[in-house]
């Protein structure tokens, strides 16, 4: 196939630009919200000093100028201070605490969801497992999250945000993220459906007659679709992480994003969005590399037969 490498290269290019473009887009989107955070602190009609505050927070020259200034500072490792989420605290400090939590949360959940996909692909997890996963996945993340949060609070009381409870919150968060909203079941079902559809193809039947393992024949064709499915699932997990972190009150990037957006704390939102963009870029790059490997090695057309 000519040009098969175009898409993976495009993905790599997109992955490289995501950490720059996504924060700019988020800045523009959040800027569209009515009012501005300086106005919330000090409405101009009833309070003086708002103009100085807007200047201090660089809100007086438009979203592009704001983003440029932010980017310039960010490249020097300076992310400013939170305006409202945790007023006065350096954003870098907030991220330092939040990023590992989200990495663990999404990473562990991603691993389990990937295993679900592999289980569906290999047949290790069959129809019964899928039905069970779907049954559990009926429960929304909010419900399971509230149950977990309530249990932890009842168990630990005033120490509900201490180190022990924090570990349990993370474990609960992973469980909720994987099980709720049909994440695990969906990954399993998607892989099984794609595999079943591919298994029905004639070439697979021919391969079986030849005594070959069906999976060995199907995998090169299935791989791009499954990698795409997996990436979509992981992106879905990133979204789900926002809800899980907020409900379980986990200090994570998703919680910062949500709270920062509600409170119009632009510095926090854009910094957190950049972290999310980096996560997405890593996933995108991984998908591109997988496609390059599949296209270049696994599905390589023998010499002399190139079309």
């Amino acid at each position, binding site marked *: 196939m000519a040009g098969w490498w*175009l*898409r993976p290269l*495009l*993905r790599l*290019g*997109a992955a490289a630009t*995501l950490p720059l473009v*996504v924060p700019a*887009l*988020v800045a523009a*989107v*959040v800027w*569209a*919200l*009515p009012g501005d955070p300086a106005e919330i602190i000090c409405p101009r009609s009833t309070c003086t000093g708002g103009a100085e505050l807007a200047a201090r927070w660089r809100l007086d020259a438009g979203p592009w100028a704001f983003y440029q200034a932010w980017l310039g500072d960010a490249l020097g490792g300076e992310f400013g201070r939170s305006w409202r989420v945790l007023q006065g605290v350096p954003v870098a400090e907030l991220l330092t605490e939040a990023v590992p939590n989200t990495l663990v949360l999404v990473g562990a959940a991603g691993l389990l969801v990937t295993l679900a996909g592999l289980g569906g692909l290999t047949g290790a997890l069959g129809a019964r497992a899928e039905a069970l996963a*779907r*049954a559990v*996945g*009926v*429960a*929304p*993340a*909010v*419900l399971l999250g*509230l*149950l977990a949060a*309530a*249990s932890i609070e*009842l168990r630990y009381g005033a120490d509900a945000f201490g180190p022990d409870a924090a570990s349990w919150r993370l474990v609960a968060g992973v469980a909720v993220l994987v099980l709720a*909203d*049909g994440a695990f079941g*969906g990954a399993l*079902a*998607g892989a099984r*459906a*794609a595999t079943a*559809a*591919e298994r*029905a193809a004639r070439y697979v039947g021919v391969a079986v007659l030849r005594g070959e393992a069906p999976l060995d024949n199907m995998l090169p064709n299935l791989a791009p*679709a499954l990698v*795409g499915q997996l*990436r*979509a699932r992981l*992106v*879905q997990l*990133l979204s789900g992480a*926002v*809800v899980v972190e*907020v*409900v379980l009150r986990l200090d994570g990037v998703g919680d910062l*994003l*949500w709270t920062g*957006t*509600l409170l119009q704390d632009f510095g926090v*939102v854009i910094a957190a*969005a950049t972290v999310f*963009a980096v996560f*997405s*870029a890593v996933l*995108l790059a991984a998908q591109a590399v997988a496609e390059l490997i599949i296209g270049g090695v696994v599905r390589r057309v023998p010499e002399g037969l190139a079309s």
Partner: protein
Amino acid sequence: MSRRAAAALALLVLILAGGLALTAPGSLPAAELSRAYLPPWEAPPFGTDQRGRPLWATLAQGASVLLGPSLLAGVLVALAATLGGLARCLALPWLDAGIALVGELVGSLPRMVVVLVAALLLPGGARSLTPLALVWAALCAPGAIDEAAAVAERLGGARFVEALRAHGFGWARIFLLHLAVRNLRPVVVRQGAEVTLQVAFLEIALSYLAQADDQPSLTHSDRVRSWADLLTMGYPSLVLDVPTGHALALGVGAMALLVVGTHAAVRAARAR
């Protein structure tokens, strides 16, 4: 389950949910505090809430809030995926590249932030799930397009089309029947069903988060309630001695109905 049985089940769920949505009262009935927390056998069919109001009203209102927008989002994503798959068969590299680039950028935006901003931009009286569902569909579409395009490419893409043309089939038949209906159908219906469910779960999450953050509802008028209210009313019964288990069962049951319906639709659309 046969495809016909699955289709019938999906239709039945749609009719049930649609009937609920259509019969939803515009506002909740008057409170009767003396009838608070009655179980279904004392206040059929589903019992009452903390203000003595029948839970069926909340169930119906919740259905009216999420059914239409989630179905719309599912249909739009399925459509986008179909178009993406068909576009892959056109052998237009610039189109593929353009779709890929836009898709990667859109697909990588933090969805909850975009949805939240969209919700906050709507004036208070105009809040509904529909615009958020459309935003969600737009954010999910790239992934669906990607998968459908991968399926189309596995078929052979433009060469598959050429081969069918060589058989004398017209463009419409090739693209609509052979590609869309016969080959892309399972994946686009599955993608659409997933997005339908995602929007339903999204509504529950947003409803709860709005309430928890002292915000006006992000997904519906403040006059109506959603299935999130059933779940948040009911969940303490699992950890505390609170008589709200019937609300939890109803909320989970409603979600299960939706899951069964979407799953049945996927089964009905699977490849022969």
